[in-house]
Each structure stands twice: as C-alpha cells, then as structure tokens.
C-alpha cells in the first residue's frame, strides 16, 4: 500500500489523475453508456465471442464490449499484474485452480445478490461446476463451458489387433489386456498414454478408485485408494505397456495418439478439434466413455466469466456476465465447435459439428463427474504433483508410487496448512 502510494508520487502528477480507469469518464457513466473489456486467452473462440457480443449489443446498445486476447502462457502473469496495478479487464475468464485465491482477496465482484434480485438461477449449468465458482457462500462466476474426459481410440489399430472397440462395459482390466495386444516395440506403438497429466489421467483414475485429492486442509495422496488409482498408470508403465514420463515429456500423449502410435488416449473435448481437422486422423478416430475402475468416475472442469471488483462499470459488466449464462450464448458457443457450452441442452451444436465422433460420450458422463479439486493455493501443490510423482513415472519399478504419493501428501499438507 505504502509502496504504491510512493510509486504514484514518483510519477508525473497530472498523469496520476487517470489512474486505474483511463478509458472511462464520468460523463459516460451518467448517460448510461458503458465500455467494458473482456479478457480471454483462446484465439479459436474469438469468432464465437464476436457473435456473442453482437447479440448482447442488440439487447444493450449502450454497452460496448471489446475483447482483450492474451495467450494462455502469459494470461495469468498479466492478470495478476494488472489486477494488482489496476487496469485489468472488466470481465475475464477464470479457471478452477485460481478462483479461490482471486475471490478470497477481494479482486472479484460478488454476484449472488444481483442474481437473486434478478431471479436468475443457475440450474441449467452443471451444479458441481457452479459450486466450483462459489466461495464462502458467495457466487463469483458463472460457468461458460465445461469439459470432462473421454476415451479416444484409433479404430485402425483396434481392427489390426482384432480388439473390439471400447464401450461402457470396459474396465481397467479390459484396458490392461488390450494394451498387451497393441504393444509393438519395433513401431514404438503402445496401447495407451499414461502421461503424468492430472486432468486427463490422474484425477479420473483416482476418482474411479474412490480416492480423493484434497479435502479442506488435508491431502488425499496418502490414502490407499488414491494411490491405487495412480498405480493403474504406473503398473502399465512398469509392464512396458505404456510410454514412461520421459517419453511423454518429449512427445505428448496427444501427439503420439494423433501420430498413430497409441491405440487409446484419455482426452478432453477440445482435443477433438485437432483430431477432426486432419482428415486421416478423423477417419481412424472415435470416442467412448472412460473404462471404469472400482466405480465410474470422471473429473469436470470448466471456465467461468468473472467480474473485476475494481471495474468502473459493475452494472454493465454484470449484465454481460448474466447474458453469457443464457441459452442463446450456449448455442452460439456450441455451434462454433470449439468447446462444450455449460448451458444444459446447448451442447448439440458442438456434437453436431463433428458428426463422425461420438461426442455424446462427454455429455453422458456428466453424472459420473466430480468437480476438479481445488483449494486456495491450488497451483502450488499442483506443481508438487509433477515433481514428486515424476520419480515413480519413469518406468523404474524400484521407485514405488506409494512412496512418491506419501511424499506428495506431506508436501501438500504443508501448503494446505499455511493457506489463509
């Protein structure tokens, strides 16, 4: 606080007057005209967002919306800097790992009261996703899209190996057996990617083994069931039925799958875009629900639109976020074929955009889903996952995943303890 005051004093005096809200003037506000900015990171979704903004402007001709596109690699650095320094977008994309920290420190505008006053209920969006963006009883964001995990498979390799295509009867055991059929060392061919990828691989397997990741201030990685979920992947690696973490660090599971080196791959809805764009890959790819472990289980995550607490136009920003949660916007987003919109029933646009793929698999699995695990300092312990579990992922059976997981649990507990 003092430092910033000092910085301002050091700056030219007349310039300091425009601090924080350089683009807005009182005149505009009095006449009900507002100009808000919308921060996002995905170039692919820009066209759909232009459509959304055009539709919004039909209802609110007095509100201008401009898009601020920042690539994902710098999005969070930029956001933190601009929130702290003043000058962040009025409405912007938020994800699960970051939501609690941003809401806890008062950087986001709470919207529960406004939603209640408007009689808006968010029942049309997956409820565990809506909950993800609530903190201490207050709603801070509304989901715009969602993703869970499905099994992508290469029909050519299945036909060649004479393995029947995966369906909802598949279990972990079926996967293990199939992987033996697919392994062709001379071609560098494997049955499945077991990459150290929390959202695609680790969490679904943990949840399918009735394990858990975080609960309050406690890590779930010391739990036998959690470790059992991880062992599904490390057993495959240690049996040389899946590439180890060094191989998947060099060539991602997705690239290996697209390149025809993998028969199966746990993928996000978004992964369908690239598979679909390449005609050869499109023809040999299809999608099924995940094989089940001791239970069905999946992880759901999605982005939300949130409002900058320091926006000079809270009303306009709220109107925009509310509008983004409607069926109309869900349909525009779905039709663009880039993501699965979170408004129930509007996914058909996305599903129809790639009729050759069984994209229904994603929608069918919503009931199996557990919300993406988060706490306040999610990023900190997420980092620890990869560095501490990595040891057990390099294909050396001497390094036990149980040890690595226990080490992770203690490191993670330290972080959780210190959370505000």
């Amino acid at each position: 606080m003092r430092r910033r005051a000092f910085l301002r004093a050091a700056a030219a005096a007349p310039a300091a007057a425009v601090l924080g809200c350089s683009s807005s003037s009182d005149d505009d506000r009095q006449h009900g005209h507002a100009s808000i900015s919308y921060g996002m990171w995905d170039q692919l979704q820009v066209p759909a967002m232009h459509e959304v903004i055009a539709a919004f402007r039909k209802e609110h001709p007095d509100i201008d919306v401009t898009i601020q596109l920042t690539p994902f690699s710098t999005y969070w650095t930029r956001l933190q800097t601009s929130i702290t320094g003043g000058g962040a977008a009025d409405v912007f994309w938020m994800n699960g790992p970051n939501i609690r920290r941003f809401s806890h420190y008062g950087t986001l505008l709470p919207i529960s009261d406004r939603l209640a006053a408007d009689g808006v209920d968010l029942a049309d969006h997956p409820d565990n996703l809506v909950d993800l963006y609530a903190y201490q009883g207050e709603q801070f964001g509304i989901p715009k899209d969602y993703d869970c995990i499905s099994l992508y498979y290469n029909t050519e390799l299945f036909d060649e190996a004479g393995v029947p295509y995966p369906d909802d009867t598949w279990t972990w055991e079926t996967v293990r057996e199939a992987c033996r059929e697919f392994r062709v060392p001379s071609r560098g061919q494997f049955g499945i990617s077991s990459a150290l990828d929390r959202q695609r691989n680790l969490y679904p397997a943990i949840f399918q083994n009735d394990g858990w990741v975080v609960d309050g201030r406690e890590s779930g990685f010391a739990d036998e069931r959690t470790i059992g979920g991880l062992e599904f992947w490390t057993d495959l690696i240690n049996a040389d039925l899946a590439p180890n973490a060094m191989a998947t660090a060099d060539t991602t599971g997705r690239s290996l799958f697209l390149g025809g080196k993998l028969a199966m791959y746990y993928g996000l809805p978004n992964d369908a875009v690239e598979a679909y764009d390449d005609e050869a890959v499109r023809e040999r790819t299809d999608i099924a629900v995940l094989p089940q472990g001791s239970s069905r289980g999946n992880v759901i995550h999605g982005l939300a639109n949130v409002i900058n607490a320091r926006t000079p136009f809270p009303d306009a920003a709220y109107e925009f976020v509310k509008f983004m949660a409607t069926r109309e916007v869900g349909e525009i987003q779905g039709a663009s074929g880039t993501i699965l919109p979170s408004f129930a029933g509007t996914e058909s646009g996305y599903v129809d955009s790639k009729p050759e793929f069984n994209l229904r698999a994603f929608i069918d699995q919503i009931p199996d889903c557990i919300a993406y695990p988060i706490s306040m300092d999610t990023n900190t312990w997420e980092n620890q996952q990869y560095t501490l579990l990595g040891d057990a992922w390099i294909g050396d059976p001497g390094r036990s995943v149980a040890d690595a997981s226990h080490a992770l649990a203690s490191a993670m507990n330290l972080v959780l303890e210190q959370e505000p």
Partner: protein
Amino acid sequence: MTSTTTPASTAAAHPARWRGSARGTWAGSVITHAVLIAGAVVMVFPFVWQVLTAFKTQAEAVAVPVQVFPSRWEWAVFTEIFDVLPFAEQLRTSAIVALVRTVGQVLLCSLAAYAFARLHFRGRELLFALFLSVLMVPGQLLILPQYELMVSFGLLNTIPALILPGLFSAFGTFLLRQFFLTIPAELEEAALIDGASRLRIYWSVMLPLVRPALAALAVITMMNSWNDLLWPLVVNTDPNVMPISAGLTTLQGQFQTNYPALMAGALLASLPMLLVFLVLQRQFVQGIALTGSKG
C-alpha cells in the same frame, strides 16, 4: 571526420600483402570455410525449419515422427495471417518501437559511455556500479512495479509504454564504454588543445571511432526490441497497438498452436529485420583504421 583521425590509408595501402598471406595458406582457407559452413548450418537450421513449417499443414507440423518437408507447398497461410491478425498495424508498431529504442539507446548510451570512459568526476565508479546493478535484477521482478509506473503515467495501451523501459540501457552503456576505453587518449587530447568542447569531441571525434560498436549495439537493440514479448503483452491489450512479436503469440493456444500461421507470420515479420542487418553490416565491414601515435 576531423583532423584527429587519419583516413583509412594504411589499410588501403597494403591490401595486396594481406591477400597474399591469406592465399599462401590454401589449406587454411579450406579449413576456414569448412568450419564456417558447419557453423552456418547449425545457426540457420531452425530458420529453415521455420520456413518449411510455414508451408506445412497443421497436421504435418506436429506429426509424429517428424515430417521434414511439406507434402504440398501451400501459400495460403501467408495471406491468411493478414485475416487473423492486424498484421500491418502490428508491423508498424514494431517498426516505430524498434526505431525509437535503437536511435535513443545508441545516442543516450554513447553519451553516458563516453563520460564513464573518458571524463573524470566524483563518484564515477560508484555510479557505474549502480548502472551495472540494473543488469543484475531479473527482469521478471520488475514487471509489476514497471506496470504500476505505466498505469500512473497513464500510458497503458500506448506505444510510449512499449518504448520507455527499453530506451535506457545499462547494457548499451557498458558495451560502448568498453569501446571508448580502447581509443588512444592522444586523439582526444589533441582536440582539447584545439579548444573543442567535450560535446564536440564526443560527437565528431569519438563517435566515428566506435562506429562498429554503435552498429553492434544498434543490431542488438533492434533485435531485442523486435522480439520483445512479455512486456508488450503486459502493458498492451489492444491488438492494434501490439507489436508483431506479441501479436504472433496470440496464435499459441492453451492446448494447440497454429504452427504454420505462426511460422509464416514470423517469417514475414523477420524480413524487415534482415534488410536492416544487410544495411548495418556494412558498418562492421568498413571498420576503423586509425593510426594513433602509439604502436
């Protein structure tokens, strides 16, 4: 040039002998070329890769195993890039930023460097150490306070915000100081006796003598400015005032990157820089021939 520098007469007077000695070692020449060609291949390879990737399809660009050549030479992406990005505006922004930074740095840094190398004043060593300390702070640490400064200057989303931090360089000052230190003191003292002012000596005597260093600094500054990434992305969100380096990164998605468009855009963006280099490199080639009274 003033009377204190002797024109490049000595070097020009003996070109034959230099050539003669080089031709004398034919084997040496072959080895020289072999080393230089091998080195050139290593240096140029990624650029060639960039060119090849620009012509590929997205699938070919990320193929496993790697596909070296595109199956069809596709030019469409070079026009597509103009639809995806405000390419011309961004190129213009990059050019303005690079030009102002380069001219500014060369002028300001050479002034300071000359003072550090040649003038004596109280606290010189300490001030120089202070300059150097700027280089020792990781740039990532300064992002937030510098951003706050730009906010308080009211410069967010403007071209001056892109230019400002890069206008002042401890690196450039240090580099030029080293070169000024190599100039024989006699040249300057002669001019002082002639009654020339310090500013005049700096401008007419010393600057011409360190021309190769000025060219080197210009090249380095211009390239750094052209490739600058994090800073423009932090202070700028308006695509129309974004430099091309930052504009191109918006093609990199969270899960996938449009590599052909990225490479094609980068290729187009690099052409002006290549031209600049071809012009500036004559400054290196000419070199400096001075015959000081020492030696």
